[in-house]
């Protein structure tokens, strides 16, 4: 992924957003002048804002899959803890899998959503290198998946809905992870999620990386943010294995059909959550608001269902997945 460029402009910016940079800088200058009170700039700022909006609209309405990957992975993109803070009240993080360790790459907890107790969880990436190192770039180890399962069971015991946020490049492929049974941890989660007796909504907020994503994403409803991706392997991974050339990642990104629109068409997800103009990072508050109303909308029809109906609903959803010649 190309690094966000360091510019005079105070916020990080994506590579393809460059046409906006000049406008952003200009606007910042005007705002400064306005602040000093030397000159009245309200009208100019208004005009400039309009120009920014139009340009941004142009850029973001025609993103290629590769550019969407960049947005989905953008370091400034709101992460799970950002969203939890904006969507829920009284969040208390719960730690540890009770067997080996706590995994900071996957956060879990209890919270309140519009007056209703819920359990929340999600992979958490960092906004800086330091934070990312502490959180292992959102790549969970087996203990992360086992913690998630423990907390799902807690939700089930007390009949609370579960909300999961998915944002990971994949489950961590490390020596310790293999030693402690990464495959087993994910496999078990898949089986157990299918049997949960409570309403469960999953949202792919950024990067839905393969089994590591699916490991907490078997909701009765699965939603994707407009500029998120969900795939079995990263575009560069696919390119290096199938195309035998990692540099052909752009091609792979197109061929693999990994955008929200593609997955809605394939019937893998239930809905797309609209992002603010210019992507979630441009207006995290609005983004959180959109997610919140999407969760409430999806949760409502699930709440009256019985335990058995919820299991059947989820089973039928995933049972249908697959395209083949009969």
């Amino acid at each position: 992924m190309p690094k966000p460029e360091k510019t005079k402009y105070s916020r990080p910016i994506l590579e393809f957003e460059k046409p906006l940079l000049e406008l952003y800088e200009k606007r910042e200058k005007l705002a400064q002048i306005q602040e000093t009170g030397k000159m009245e700039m309200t009208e100019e700022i208004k005009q400039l804002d309009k120009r920014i909006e139009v340009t941004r609209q142009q850029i973001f309405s025609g993103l290629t899959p590769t550019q969407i990957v960049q947005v989905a992975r953008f370091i400034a993109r709101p992460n799970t803890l950002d969203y939890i803070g904006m969507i829920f009240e009284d969040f208390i993080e719960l730690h540890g899998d009770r067997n080996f360790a706590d995994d900071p790459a996957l956060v879990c907890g209890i919270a309140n959503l519009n007056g209703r107790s819920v359990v929340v969880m999600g992979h958490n990436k960092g906004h800086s290198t330091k934070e990312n190192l502490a959180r292992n770039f959102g790549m969970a180890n087996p203990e992360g998946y086992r913690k998630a399962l423990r907390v799902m069971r807690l939700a089930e015991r007390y009949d609370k809905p579960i909300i999961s946020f998915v944002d990971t490049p994949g489950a961590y492929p490390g020596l310790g992870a293999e030693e402690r049974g990464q495959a087993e941890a994910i496999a078990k989660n898949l089986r157990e999620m299918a049997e949960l007796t409570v309403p469960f909504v999953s949202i792919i907020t950024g990067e839905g990386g393969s089994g590591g994503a699916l490991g907490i994403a078997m909701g009765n409803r699965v939603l994707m943010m407009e500029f998120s991706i969900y795939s079995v392997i990263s575009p560069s991974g696919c390119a290096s294995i199938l195309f035998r050339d990692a540099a052909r990642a752009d091609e792979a990104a197109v061929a693999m059909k990994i955008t929200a629109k593609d997955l809605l068409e394939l019937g893998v997800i239930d809905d797309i959550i609209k992002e603010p103009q210019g992507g979630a990072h441009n207006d995290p508050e609005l983004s959180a608001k959109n997610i919140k109303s999407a969760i409430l909308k999806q949760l409502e029809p699930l709440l009256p269902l019985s335990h058995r109906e919820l299991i059947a609903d989820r089973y039928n959803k995933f049972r249908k997945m697959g395209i083949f010649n009969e």
Partner: protein
Amino acid sequence: MSIHDWFKRKKLQKEAEYTRERLDIPGNLWIKCYKCNQTIYNKDLEANLKVCPKCGYHFKLGSAERVRQVSDNGSFKEIDQHLTSKDFLNFTDTKSYAGRIKDSILKTGLNDAIITGTAKIGTYDVALGIMDFSFMGGSMGSVVGEKFTRLVELAVEKKIPVIVFSTSGGARMQESIMSLMQMAKTSAALGRLRENGLPYISVMTDPTSGGVSASFAMLGDINIAEPAALVAFAGPRVIEQTIRQKLPPGFQRSEYLLEHGMLDIVCERQKLKDTLTKILRFFKD
């Protein structure tokens, strides 16, 4: 002949051997063990269930051979044989997926990377699934997921245990997200089997990795693996790239997994049928 030609020939030989190992097609009447280099008469090897008599190396087995080895004579009745993969994304890498499917069917005589059906093992009725590495590296796409799921559903209907032999390089990338969804589908089916109080025995053979190990292969009530089989989530090369150090010897082999608590049994091929029969008896009585 220059020295370069000599190297070239060596390389070609090595490649041929490698392909042969992958396809598990013995080239001649005599075959060299890939591990100890012992020359073995092919018929002896077959009689020894394709295990090297000298060093115990387990050659890869095709699904048909496996059926012959583990099920009671002629008891296997295949189901869902007609299911074939579809190139629904029009996926083309160095070759089109549609072309790959066609070639694999021609080359292997199989319709996809798993065969499923009912069989008897030591007189016990079972739902039996056997993956085949020669069909696109045993990768799991919609057909593998669907056949596995239908097998489990059949077992629920007939109230019989499920035994599946896995061997797979992982998800079938040409089916992109749909291959990932097969992990969810197959695991959910196993949840249902469990709810119905029916046992599932998973036998992992060399190699079992990626999407298959992170779904149905690891979910056995009893997990068995053949000796020295590679059983992994991420392949050794990926891990080496991540941690930038050499991996310990024996890493991700069945004995290593047994030691780390991921398997119940590492079972030699000669004892496999007997072991399965005993386990089936345990569940039946």
